[in-house]
């Protein structure tokens, strides 16, 4: 065993040409990777992390130029290699798992053929039998061997998680030394993400490969990385062993990033300061790039370039004031006062009573298949109800039903005591005004050909009879309420950042003074640091205007910050509902528990959902529990045939399960205690 690292990069600078000018994307960055090590890189989008690790594959964009640097793989410089040598290297010794499997897999090629192509392209010489054996081995390694007829399936016949496993299998095909993973779980929901991370961890021990893992999500890295590097504006600003970085971060940016995303283990009330501002590449000072956003900066930071200095073994930071930063942040954080609980008595603002929803599919006379079945929910004025569950569980469908876009198949929706017409057409204008929808993707929810001012003016024209001056005043006020100044009114959506666009979308909903917000995954299209701002904004609006919210999210960490009550959906069935504190504490519904365990960063795994290869329950459920097929504590045929009874806990939450509450309390014991500690 020699001590030389597998990969050794130093002083890498890469620029991109943009409108005739060269912009530096990576600035004098370096790292090293040893055998069987997982090195993670995190940072906001545009921080240059993908560009940096892309260099290990000799990635050369026609618009990019390598200004300096050296990247040694087993002593050979990758940056100087010609195309032929690179082809020998790529896929063979260093392999890539890209972000989006749906676009990376060839849609017209069967799974087996895609992997075989990788092997034959790299001179696999063993004949057909050996090829088939290798395929079977790869499927076994990646947990795909349980999927029926896997090799003959087309990508569209696989789930998102299976597609990503297939990409991993392709990367492993030639037994590479290093696998580069570029946001491999970003497009997946939390449960699937957890399974992919488990797989990668297992592969690390079985295949002894090294990994370079790029993501914007520090929580994901905490699950898998041995060492973590933080990038900002093209520079590596801090690099340290994972446990050190999470427990004792030194760079102000790392501290801000960790504060931006509430980790499951962190206290729920005492949120640390999220990051200020945005990364503006056009306004980088000559010195430390983070200086404009830094809470700890001194005047000299602006002009003094900060080099990465190793101050403790394995822990390097590019900040001249890191000792002072460490001293100041170790002070205990102030906890926020508990949320008011005087809402219990108030009459519900919105009530769903046995509502089923579905889409008409297939033929003209086909009966609509219910996506959501027999759901009863209530939201009080000023209260936030979070609707959680994995993708496909019917969360958005519920919001569509409430908004009137989708007429319920059964059940009733009542709004402040009076029944709400099932279809938009039959609803009163006032009801439409009271219930406002905010969508996931601000790019799609703002008309690109309309100025912000006009976008905000439209709802006013419909719902109010204001004169022009009042309208202008309201638009300014609405923009200010989402922390944008009035000059934004004259801009087009494409002149705004993603976070600003989502603010405008929220302002458009705010401007009509609604009583209820339907927030459909409003954060998932945004960058982590931007997410923190939007969460803060929603929290503020909720407190100052007493707006009730249906907050749809798959992100439990955010739900804990915002929600008063939580409802958990699984495949259209409500499995648990109650005050947030109760849902986050035992007794748990088995599905709720598996959701918590899937949150990256939570180490409390006492019970596992069956391995990922289990297909989603497409079996016909005869009125039974939809979770039965995946439930680790299934009782028996009873679960498949009989609807689970609602069981009320003492603290006002309801769990739908055939198990007694006492039994449920014990299965989630350990995990529950840890979540408890988090809240205390």
């Amino acid at each position: 065993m020699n001590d030389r690292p597998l990969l050794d990069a130093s002083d890498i600078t890469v620029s991109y040409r943009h409108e005739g000018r060269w912009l530096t994307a990576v600035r004098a960055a370096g790292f090293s990777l040893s055998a069987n090590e997982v090195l993670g890189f995190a940072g906001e989008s545009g921080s240059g992390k993908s560009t940096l690790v892309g260099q290990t594959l000799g990635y050369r964009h026609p618009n990019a130029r390598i200004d300096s640097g050296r990247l040694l793989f087993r002593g050979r410089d990758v940056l100087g290699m010609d195309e032929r040598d690179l082809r020998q290297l790529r896929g063979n010794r260093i392999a890539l798992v890209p972000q989006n499997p749906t676009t990376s897999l060839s849609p017209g090629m069967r799974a087996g053929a895609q992997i075989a192509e990788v092997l034959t392209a790299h001179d696999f010489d063993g004949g057909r039998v050996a090829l088939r054996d290798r395929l079977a081995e790869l499927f076994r390694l990646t947990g795909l061997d349980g999927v029926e007829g896997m090799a003959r399936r087309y990508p569209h016949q696989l789930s998102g998680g299976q597609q990503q496993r297939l990409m991993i299998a392709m990367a492993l095909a030639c037994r590479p030394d290093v696998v580069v993973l570029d946001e491999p779980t970003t497009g997946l929901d939390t449960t699937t993400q957890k399974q992919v991370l488990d797989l990668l961890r297992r592969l690390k021990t079985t295949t002894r490969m090294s990994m370079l893992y790029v993501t914007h999500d520090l929580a994901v890295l905490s699950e898998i990385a041995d060492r973590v590097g933080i990038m900002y504006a093209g520079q590596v600003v801090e690099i340290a062993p994972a446990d050190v970085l999470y427990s004792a971060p030194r760079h102000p940016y790392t501290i801000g990033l960790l504060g931006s995303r509430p980790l499951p283990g962190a206290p729920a009330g005492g949120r640390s300061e999220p990051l200020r501002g945005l990364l503006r590449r056009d306004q980088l000072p000559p010195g430390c790039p983070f200086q404009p956003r830094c809470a700890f900066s001194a005047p000299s930071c602006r002009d003094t370039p900060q080099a990465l200095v190793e101050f403790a073994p394995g822990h390097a930071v590019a900040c001249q004031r890191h000792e002072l930063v460490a001293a100041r942040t170790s002070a205990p954080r102030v906890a926020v006062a508990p949320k008011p609980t005087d809402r219990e008595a108030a009459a519900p603002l919105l009530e769903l009573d046995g509502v089923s929803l579905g889409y008409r599919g297939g033929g003209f006379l086909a009966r609509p298949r219910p996506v959501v079945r027999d759901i009863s929910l209530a939201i009080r004025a000023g209260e936030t109800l979070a609707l959680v569950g994995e993708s496909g569980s019917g969360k958005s469908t519920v919001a569509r039903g409430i908004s009137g876009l989708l007429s319920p198949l059964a059940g009733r929706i009542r709004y402040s005591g009076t029944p709400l017409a099932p279809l938009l057409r039959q609803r009163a204008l006032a009801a439409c005004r009271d219930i406002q929808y905010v969508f996931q993707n601000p790019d799609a929810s703002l008309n690109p050909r309309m100025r912000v001012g006009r976008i905000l003016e439209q709802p006013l024209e419909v719902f109010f009879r204001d004169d022009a001056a009042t309208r202008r005043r309201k638009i300014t006020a609405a923009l200010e309420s989402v922390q944008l100044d009035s000059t934004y009114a004259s801009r087009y959506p494409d002149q705004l950042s993603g976070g600003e666009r989502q603010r405008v979308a929220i302002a458009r909903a705010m401007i009509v003074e609604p009583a209820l917000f339907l927030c459909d995954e409003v954060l998932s299209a945004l960058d982590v640091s931007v997410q923190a701002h939007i969460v803060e904004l929603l929290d503020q609006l909720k407190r100052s205007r007493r707006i009730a919210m249906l907050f749809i999210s798959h992100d439990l960490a955010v739900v804990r910050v915002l929600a008063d009550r939580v409802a958990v959906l699984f495949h259209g069935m409500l499995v648990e509902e109650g005050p947030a504190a109760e849902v986050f504490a035992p007794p748990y519904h088995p599905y709720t528990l598996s959701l918590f365990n899937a949150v990256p960063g939570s180490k409390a795994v006492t019970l596992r959902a069956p391995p990922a290869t289990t297909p989603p329950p497409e079996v016909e459920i005869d009125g039974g529990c939809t979770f039965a097929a995946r439930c680790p504590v299934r009782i028996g045929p009873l679960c498949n045939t009989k609807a689970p009874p609602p069981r009320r806990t003492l603290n006002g939450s309801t769990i739908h399960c055939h198990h007694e509450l006492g039994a449920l309390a014990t299965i989630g014991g350990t995990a529950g205690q840890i979540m408890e500690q988090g809240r205390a």
Partner: protein
Amino acid sequence: MRWWRAWWSTPATFRIGTAIIAVFVAMAAIGTYVLPYDPAQIGTGKPLEGPSLSHLFGTDQLGRDVFSRSVAAARVDVLVSFLGAAGGLVAGAFLGLFSGFIRGPIDEILQRLNEALISIPFLILGLLLLTVLGPYFRGEPIAVVFVLTLIYLPRVARMARSAAIEIAARDFVTIARLRKQRPFTIIWRELAPNAAGVLLVEFAIRAGYAPILVGTLGFLGFGVKPPTPEWGLMISSNRNLMVVAPHTVLGPGLMLTLFVIGLNLFTEGLARLVGRSARTGAA
């Protein structure tokens, strides 16, 4: 200054096409005032005289100056082509956006009618319409405009409908629906501006074919009435002399070809320009 720079940053095909079109528009507007001869005047020179300095394109059977007639013909051809394409665009865009936005049974019916219209070869449709319109309208430029509009309507409508379906699925349209805005308000404010790029290119393509169609109708004797100078008509009436005096056909043919080339260059450049701005997001 900014306009000047923006102009030079457009694709070359767009600039050349625009220049050619500009020349033809100028011909249509002021051609008759600056011409060396009155296009209708008989005996400006000897009949069937070849090209010379005094008669650039020579003279026809009646001694009329072919150059003057070819330039004067731009008035009818350019105007009729643009109006016809514009008519087809406006009517087609309206029907297509409406149909694609409301969907359901009305959309189905409109689409079947549309397909029926498209399935008739356009020349036959044109001749049929002109026959039905009767002798009173036939020969008037407005009749040709009408025919062009009806030929282009279903083709534009189809394009507009598919654009509308794509845009109507976006969230900002859903938001407008949730405001209970009237369908026509939504179509006008949310759909039309976003379909404008596609429709503009569609218009340019149609306008590029229009002169050929006008010429064809004229050639077949279903266009404008004989004394009016029109390219297709001029080619038609001189086709017997093609061997003896090719210049009588070449003159109008050259004009027609040049105009169509100009329009096509313009369209290609425009498509690239619109595509580019859609990608970079510049309005």
